[in-house]
C-alpha cells in the first residue's frame, strides 16, 4: 500500500512539475504583475527618483501641488563646499574663492540674485567669470538623479525647500521613475470605455464562432459525411481539415489575397463594375464576417472529428431500428443522433470556449483588431497593451491585469465544466438485475 502510494506519487511528479511550472507559476506571476504599473518607461527592475518636467507635471496635475511644482522647476543657487572645490579645480582666482567662502551656506532662489552677490565681490570677477562661478553653485533639483527617497529628501532640504509632509510624499511619488504597487490597473479597466467595447466584442466573437462553426457547422459536417459513402465522406473530412493543418500565416494570407483590393473578390466584382476595395477592412461588419469565417473554418475541424467518431460509436443497429420504426432521416438525427451527442457537444463547447477566449493569432494576422478597434477582442487587447503597441510604451502591468481577467474567466469556466462533466459521466447508475 505504502510503496504503491509512493510509486504513484513518483509517476505523478513530472505532471505536477509541469503543472506548477507552466500553469501555477504563470498564473501567480500574472496576478502579481497585475498589481504593478510596470511598463517600458518604468522598467521591470527598480527605479530612481528624478525631478523632471514630466514628474513636475504629474506633481501639479495628479497630486494637486502646482505651486510646489512651479517652485521646484526654478533653479536655486547654494554656496557650498562642493561648489568651492569645483571653483578651485576650474582655476578661479583664489582670493575670489576665499571671499566666496564667507557666503558659505547662503541660498539664492534665482540666478540673477546669485550673480548679483558674485558681482559684488571685492575680486571684481568679469561677466564671463561671474557666469562661470554661478554655474558651479546651481543646485536645481531638476534632472538630478537620486538613488533613494532619502537622498531626494536630503536634496530638497539642502536646497532649503520648505515642504509639508504631504508635499514631500507627493514629490517622492511623482518623481519615482520605477514601477510601484498599484490597483490603478483595475480602476482604469473599469473606467475605460474601450474595455466594455472589447468585452462585448469578445463575447460576440466567442459566441458566434462557437455556435455557428465550432459546434453547429462541425455537427453539420459530421452528420452529412456520416451519411455519405465511406470514401466520399473521408475526402470531405480531409478537405475540412486543411485550414487546421495549414500554417496560420499562410492560411490568413490566403484570406487576405481573397479580400485585398487587388484580390479575388475585387477582381471578380470588378467584372460587374464594382469598385475594388479592401473587403476585409472596408467596414466593421465586413471585418467581423472575415474574422468569424477565418476562425470558424479552423475551429470546425476539431468538432467535426470529435462528432464523427462519436457518431461512429453509435451502434449501426440503432440506425436500422429507427428506420424500421418509421423515423425519417431528419427524425433519426433529431431523436437518435443528437441526444447521444450531448457529451461530445459539451466537450467541444468547453474546450473551444477556452481556446477562443485565449487565442488571437488569426485576428492579429488578419484585421489586427481593426478597423478602428472593431474586431479587437480581449486577448488581442492584452497583447496590444503589453507586448506590441503603437505608442511604444508597453504596459506590462496593465496588460497582465487584462490577462488576469481572462485567467479568472478561464479557471471559473473550467471548474464549472469539470463539475458538469464529472457528475453525470462518473456517477453511472448501477445495473439492476431482477
Amino acid at each position: 500500500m505504502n510503496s504503491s502510494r509512493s510509486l504513484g506519487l513518483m509517476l505523478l511528479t513530472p505532471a505536477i512539475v509541469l503543472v506548477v511550472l507552466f500553469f501555477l507559476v504563470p498564473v501567480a506571476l500574472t496576478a502579481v504583475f497585475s498589481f504593478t504599473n510596470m511598463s517600458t518607461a518604468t522598467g521591470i527592475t527598480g527605479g530612481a527618483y528624478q525631478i523632471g518636467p514630466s514628474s513636475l507635471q504629474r506633481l501639479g496635475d495628479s497630486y494637486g501641488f502646482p505651486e510646489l511644482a512651479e517652485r521646484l522647476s526654478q533653479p536655486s543657487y547654494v554656496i557650498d563646499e562642493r561648489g568651492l572645490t569645483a571653483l578651485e579645480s576650474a582655476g578661479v582666482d583664489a582670493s575670489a574663492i576665499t571671499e566666496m567662502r564667507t557666503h558659505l551656506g547662503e541660498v539664492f532662489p534665482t540666478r540673477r540674485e546669485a550673480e548679483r552677490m558674485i558681482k559684488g565681490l571685492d575680486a571684481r570677477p568679469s561677466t564671463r567669470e561671474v557666469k562661470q562661478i554661478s554655474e558651479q553653485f546651481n543646485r536645481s533639483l531638476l534632472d538630478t538623479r537620486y538613488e533613494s527617497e532619502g537622498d531626494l529628501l536630503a536634496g530638497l532640504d539642502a536646497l532649503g525647500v520648505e515642504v509639508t509632509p504631504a508635499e514631500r510624499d507627493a514629490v517622492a511619488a511623482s518623481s519615482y521613475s520605477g514601477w510601484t504597487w498599484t490597483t490603478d490597473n483595475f480602476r482604469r479597466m473599469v473606467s475605460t470605455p474601450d474595455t466594455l467595447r472589447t468585452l462585448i466584442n469578445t463575447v460576440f466573437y466567442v459566441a458566434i464562432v462557437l455556435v455557428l462553426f465550432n459546434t453547429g457547422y462541425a455537427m453539420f459536417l459530421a452528420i452529412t459525411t456520416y451519411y455519405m459513402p465511406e470514401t466520399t465522406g473521408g475526402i470531405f473530412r480531409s478537405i475540412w481539415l486543411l485550414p487546421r493543418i495549414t500554417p496560420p500565416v499562410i492560411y490568413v494570407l490566403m484570406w487576405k489575397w481573397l479580400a485585398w483590393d487587388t484580390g479575388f473578390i475585387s477582381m471578380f466584382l470588378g467584372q460587374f463594375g464594382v469598385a475594388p476595395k479592401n473587403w476585409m477592412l472596408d467596414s466593421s461588419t465586413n471585418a467581423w464576417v472575415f474574422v468569424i469565417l477565418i476562425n470558424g473554418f479552423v475551429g470546425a475541424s476539431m468538432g467535426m472529428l470529435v462528432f464523427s467518431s462519436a457518431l461512429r460509436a453509435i451502434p449501426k443497429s440503432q440506425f436500422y431500428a429507427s428506420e424500421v420504426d418509421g423515423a425519417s432521416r431528419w427524425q433519426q438525427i433529431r431523436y437518435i443522433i443528437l441526444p447521444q451527442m450531448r457529451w461530445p457537444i459539451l466537450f467541444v463547447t468547453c474546450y473551444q470556449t477556452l481556446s477562443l477566449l485565449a487565442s488571437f493569432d488569426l485576428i492579429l494576422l488578419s484585421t489586427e483588431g481593426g478597423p478602428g478597434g472593431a474586431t479587437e477582442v480581449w486577448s488581442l487587447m492584452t497583447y496590444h497593451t503589453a507586448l506590441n503597441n503603437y505608442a511604444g510604451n508597453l504596459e506590462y502591468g496593465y496588460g497582465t491585469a487584462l490577462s488576469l481577467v481572462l485567467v479568472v474567466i478561464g479557471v471559473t469556466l473550467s471548474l464549472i465544466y469539470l463539475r458538469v462533466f464529472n457528475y453525470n459521466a462518473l456517477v453511472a447508475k448501477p445495473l439492476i438485475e431482477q
Partner: protein
Amino acid sequence: MRILLDKFSKSFGTTKVIEDLTLEVADGEMLALLGPSGCGKSTTLFAICGIHKVTGGRILFGDRDVTDLPSQARSVGVVFQSYALYPHMTVAENIAFPLQVKKVAPDQIKREVDAIAALVHIENLLGRRPAELSGGQQQRVALARALVRKPDVLLLDEPLANLDAKLRLEMRSEIRRIQLETGITAILVTHDQVEAMSMCDRIAIMNAGEIVQLATPTEMYHNPRTAFVAGFLGNPPIAFLRGTAKDGGFALDNSDIRLPLPAGTLSPADGSKLTLGIRPEDFGPLGDIAIPGKIAFVETQGRENLYDVRLADGSMLRSIQPVRGDIAVGNEVAWSASGAKVMVFGEDGARL
C-alpha cells in the same frame, strides 16, 4: 399478413449471397429461417424489413409490393440481436418511439404503450433506461417496441442469442405466446435448431443462400430431405456412416460390416456411395439391425446417458438411453438400429 418472397436475389458488390429465393409465409404463421452462419438468413431478413435493397425479384406483404419501399413505409417490426434499444430514452420512450415519429397523439401513445407493456410483462420497468435492465428485460422492451405500432410483419433476428440458457428457455415460450396472442406473421432468424423447432410453425432451413427444405418441425425432423437437414436438426445430433451400396445392402467403408437397407428404400446401383443417418434415439439395445462396436465415451446428462460407440472402421454412432450402470468406456457392445428409422442419403446428400 402473408409475406411472399418472389425470386428474390441479393448480392453485395460481386458477391452473390442469395439467388432466386422464393418463400411464402402464411398469415399469422411463425416461420424460422434456420441455417449456419453466412447462409443468407439475416440478409433475407434485412431485405424483408428494407434495410438492404434487393438486387432482384419482389417482396410482397399481402398483395402490396414493398420491394422498392424504404423501411419506414413497410410496416415491419424488428427485434435485433443486440436489441438496438435507444440508450438515452427510457423504456416507455423507447416503446413509444415508432408512434412518436408517426406523430400519434400523446394520450393515445400512452394508452398503447401501457397495453403493449402489459402484454410483454414490463409494466413496472417503463421509467428505467436500457442500461438498467437485464438481458431478458431488454429483450421484452425490444419486442414491445417492435409490436407497438401493430406492424404487418414481425421479424426477429437471433433474438435469444445474447441471453443465458435459463432466460433463453423462458423467452422462447414468451415470444411464441406473444406472437400467438397478437396473431402477427413472424419470421425468426436463428442458427439454433432448438429455437426454430420449439417456437415456429414451419422451418425454412437454409444453406449457401438456398432454402434446402421447408416443412413443419416434426416433418423436418423425421423426414429430412438431405443429409444437411438431418445433421442440422436434433440434439444430440444424428450420426452418419459412410459406405457403398452392395448387393442391395450397405457396406461400411474400411470394414466388413454389412447392413441391410431399410425397407422402402429405392435400391441404389451397386458401388454407389451412400451415407446412413442414425439418430441417437434410434440406436440401442432394441432394434433390428445389429451394429457391433466399442464404447468410446459416456456423457452423463442426468436423466439419460449419451454413449459414443466406435465402429470397426473408426466411425462413430451415438446412442441415447436411460441411465444404466452396466456399461463403461471400452466395453464391446452389439446394439442395434431400428431399421425403419435409418435414413439413407445418396452421394449428393439427397435422401433416397
